[in-house]
């Protein structure tokens, strides 16, 4: 013990370069990462009215109890999970299918342009993009309904109808994010082993069978990575709600991060932090669970 303590200054001196290199990074992580998280969790256990005062009043689990008893929060959590599930499935499926199309032999010339097009929304600022989508869904002069009408199809409720708002947001966010997942797949598809596919073809395997038993297993790590990314991404859905729906219509898009932010704006810091903590826990459990599940099922 004493020896270990005595070794400290020596260690610090010997490795001072690496400690110096890491210091700014450590400072940023501490000040803008860990410390705020600790603060947030701490605030979740204090009375909102006093949370920011010098002597906050501790209220134990009262905020969590209030939040979990709030039917709008429970509904909000349900909508968030539902939205995440749909979005993850749709994004991964679309990205995989589109990557197979662009990564295959059918499209040669123009391939780079197609990749560019699908990736462009990823780098376009989300606020600007969603403002446009809000107009696209406008019931009276938006592109979606104008197009449907010109094709003689019935109008789409878009973000105005509680029944269609979820799919409407799924599509808008697909536009924004799917390029990323597609390129992840494409980047790794070039690494696929063509010999395996050829062998399967000689064995008389059909297109679907080859996809199911040759391509898919090889892409397993990318599917896992994409899924974890997408889960984290969509659980935190926020900007699209702020810009397009404000949680409506009829609270159908009142996702947890938006609801918590509204509580924060109303100075209900305790409840907002409690909601944040709940969502944090869900993200960790889901992300970790997916990884563990993916690692265990890996064919290696």
């Amino acid at each position: 013990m004493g020896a270990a303590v005595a070794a400290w200054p020596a260690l610090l001196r010997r490795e001072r370069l690496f400690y110096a290199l890491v210091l700014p990074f450590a400072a940023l992580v501490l000040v803008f990462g860990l410390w705020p998280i600790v603060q947030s969790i701490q605030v979740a256990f204090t009375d909102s009215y006093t949370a920011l005062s010098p002597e906050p009043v501790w209220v134990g689990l009262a905020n969590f109890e209030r939040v979990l008893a709030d039917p709008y929060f429970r509904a909000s959590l349900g909508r968030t999970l539902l939205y995440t599930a749909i979005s993850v499935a749709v994004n991964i499926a679309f990205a995989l299918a589109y990557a197979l199309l662009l990564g295959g032999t059918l499209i040669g010339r123009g391939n780079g342009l197609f990749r560019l097009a699908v990736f462009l929304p990823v780098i376009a600022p989300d606020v600007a993009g969603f403002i446009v989508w809000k107009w696209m869904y406008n019931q009276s002069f938006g592109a979606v309904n104008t197009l449907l009408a010109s094709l003689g199809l019935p109008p789409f409720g878009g973000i105005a109808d509680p029944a269609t708002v979820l799919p409407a947001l799924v599509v808008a966010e697909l536009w924004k994010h799917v390029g990323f997942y597609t390129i992840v797949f494409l980047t790794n598809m070039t690494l696929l082993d063509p010999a395996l596919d050829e062998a399967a073809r000689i064995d008389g395997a059909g297109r679907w069978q080859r996809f199911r038993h040759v391509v898919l297993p090889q892409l397993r790590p990318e599917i896992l990575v994409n899924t974890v990314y997408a889960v984290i991404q969509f659980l935190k859905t926020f900007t699209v709600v702020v810009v397009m729906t404000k949680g409506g219509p009829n609270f159908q898009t009142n996702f947890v991060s938006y609801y918590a932010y509204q509580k924060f704006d109303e100075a209900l810091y305790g409840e907002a932090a409690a909601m944040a903590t709940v969502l944090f826990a869900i993200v960790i459990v889901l992300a970790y669970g997916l990884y563990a599940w993916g690692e265990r099922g890996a064919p290696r």
Partner: protein
Amino acid sequence: MSGPGRPGALARGLAYAIALLVSAAFLYPCWWMLVSAFRDTQSILTDPLRLWPERLDLAVLTKIRTIGGTDLSVFVLNSLWITGVSTAIAVVVTALGAYALLRRPGLPGFRLLRFGFLLTIMYPYMLLVIPVYIVIWQLGLLGTRTGIILFLSLGPIQFLLFDQFFRVLPKEMIEAALIDGCSELQVLARIVLPVAWPTVGTVTLVTFLLNWSQWFPVLVISRSPATYTLPTALLMLNSELGVDFQGIMAPATLTTLPVVVVFLLTQRRVMTGMVAGAVKG
């Protein structure tokens, strides 16, 4: 039936049709934004689908000279300054941090730091910003560009990219240099840095693009539009005193165009860069 080695013309045609349709759908919103910036609100509302302005309505140039009483140039300069400086800090700080963490993973505190960082990127970002308000306030940086810049200097993708790069750096190279009597600092300067330039470039690009789009931290940390960036100013247009279409699409275009241009100039690098950060995840 198509014979082996000769994909049918039908299949090829279908594949192109799908790819073209998808691309058109993905490009359309951006194009519409650009076109609408040069049409007056009335004509946007009566003929929304037009793909080309009937005439170049340049009223927009005077219309967006100020937003909410603040000069447009303020937002442009803020965007450039905040994005530029936060990118520079992020690249330097994370590169050095990731290097140290990888070269000496066993040093006391290093493992903890890596774990702490991973925890940070798991926290719902939007909700992290709320306690950050309190921290920034405690630091006395509320309403300052410095506060915004510092907060934006910490991001997941930079770390993951550098981490991955240093991981595949051949160890023999470093060891050989150390045996030759180089100090660790010399190793960093003479061996690591020269091969790291391309990665530094990619990370810089990616960080710039990502930080340019940030609006929420900017909104939370600011105390007046004087420190708003372009995307944040865009949101402000949703005020109680009315909205005009062209007046929104013009600044939206102004917000989007710079990143699109940068992206088009550096496409492959940006795409592989952003994706590489994910694959490590």
